[in-house]
């Protein structure tokens, strides 16, 4: 598995390097335009980065299924489950790396904006913010962030496994039908429709329980980490189960039905 992930990154390191260099160059250019430019970068960069990221992780799998270079991967004695899992892990690791990149830019540009407005960077204030985060006196704490990130990761995994499963179904069960890209999209919509039917029935069952927590939070005006976790738990659990099930289906199809 590690070898598969290693070569996924070797294949895309140039693209990532070009993205970072372009981002740095663009940031420098916008910073020279003043605080507004720096703020513009912080707003626009994550949107562009997210679009590029989504395109890249979809292309990462699509290229292997649709191009002859996919033989390099699919001729190796690795199971379909291992191949699809390595793609997912690569996507997650790449996502974290890009998130970290944005965090670095936020720190740099944040510091620049503070200095540009004539204020001084007060390190004790930074420590105070961290203290407040830890104590939760800001209305949210690190626990809130951690819970939200975990839920986001689960939703993202569910989404990307749905995309990958749609492509796998098209390249296995419907491998002889033309208009592959369109067909993959239709399959993607069908899977999502199926999942929404299942999830709406499940959530109908737990709605009363949900309502009591939501009402408690609304009346208090804020959610404790435990309450936030409780609210997100059903959707997060559902997303994780969905991701596992779809990874299993993709792995099985890669193993038993693939036509490259």
């Amino acid at each position, binding site marked *: 598995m590690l070898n598969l992930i290693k070569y996924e990154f070797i294949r895309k390191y140039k693209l990532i390097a070009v993205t970072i260099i372009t981002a740095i160059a663009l940031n420098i250019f916008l910073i020279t335009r003043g605080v507004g430019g720096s703020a513009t970068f912080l707003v626009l960069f994550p949107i562009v980065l997210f679009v590029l990221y989504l395109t890249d992780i979809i292309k990462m799998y699509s290229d292997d299924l649709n191009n002859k270079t996919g033989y390099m991967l699919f*001729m190796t004695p690795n199971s379909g489950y291992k191949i699809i899992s390595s793609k997912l892990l690569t996507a997650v690791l790449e996502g974290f790396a890009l998130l970290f990149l944005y965090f670095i830019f936020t720190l740099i540009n944040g510091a620049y904006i503070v200095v540009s407005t004539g204020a001084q960077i007060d390190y004790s204030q930074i420590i105070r913010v961290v203290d407040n985060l830890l104590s939760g006196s800001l209305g949210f704490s690190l626990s809130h962030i951690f819970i939200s990130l975990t839920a986001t990761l689960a939703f993202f995994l569910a989404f990307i496994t749905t995309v990958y499963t749609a492509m796998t179904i098209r390249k296995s069960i419907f491998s002889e039908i033309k208009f592959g890209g369109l067909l993959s999209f239709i399959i993607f919509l069908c899977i999502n429709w199926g999942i929404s039917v299942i999830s709406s029935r499940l959530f109908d069952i737990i709605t009363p329980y949900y309502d009591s927590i939501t009402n408690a939070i609304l009346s208090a005006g804020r959610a404790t980490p435990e309450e936030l976790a409780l609210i997100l738990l059903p959707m997060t659990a559902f997303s994780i189960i969905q991701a596992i099930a779809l990874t299993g289906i993709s792995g099985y199809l890669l193993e038993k039905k693939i036509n490259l």
Partner: protein
Amino acid sequence: MSQLKINGLTKKYYNKTALSDVTLNFEQGKIYGLLGPNGSGKTTLMKVVAGLHKQTSGNVLINDEELSYKTKAYISYMPTENYMYASFKVVDILKFFKDMYEDFRYDYAVALLNDINVNIDYKVSNLSSGQIGKLKTAIALSRDAEIYMLDEPLNGVDVLSRDTIMDIITKSYSENKIIIISTHLVSEIEKILDTVIFLKDGVVELFGDAEELRQTRGLSVEGLYKEVFKNA
């Protein structure tokens, strides 16, 4: 003991039958020629055995094991297409194979590529079609696999490079290996074949010992090929 058995293999595409009830037994220590014109099913047969295509019916047994990702470890398959990552240098391709296949002989591959004048520091995208052909063959034969399947190894390769490729193939022969070569360039490859399989429209038209066929039919393999496929 290396063994490849194909039983009643059928592969259908949407509106075409590429292979129809193909049954073949391959034994170790022999070089097989899978011969037939374009579209006769040679590549499909190899891709099914290599695990890149799924058969519609029938089964393939490699050392008595059903096809799975595990059997891919026994097979070194050279597709006819250029399947290597264009952005990689040749040396990176070698490292990839070393990391993915336990039986890949890295030093052997480096020496072999050096012998056939393929610079391992070149990017794949910068190689000519002849060099790609040599690289694909060298990489496939640098694995110490039980079964080698080479799909059209002489396609797009100039006359001088063809001799080099033939040399590499014959050097790789050993008593415990099966070598299967598909081609429609019969005259070039005839001299190294022990057994020939003629595929026509996805059906085995003729299967037999090359020498025996020459004697009984009074024709070279190429002559037989022309006879069998004259209307194809």
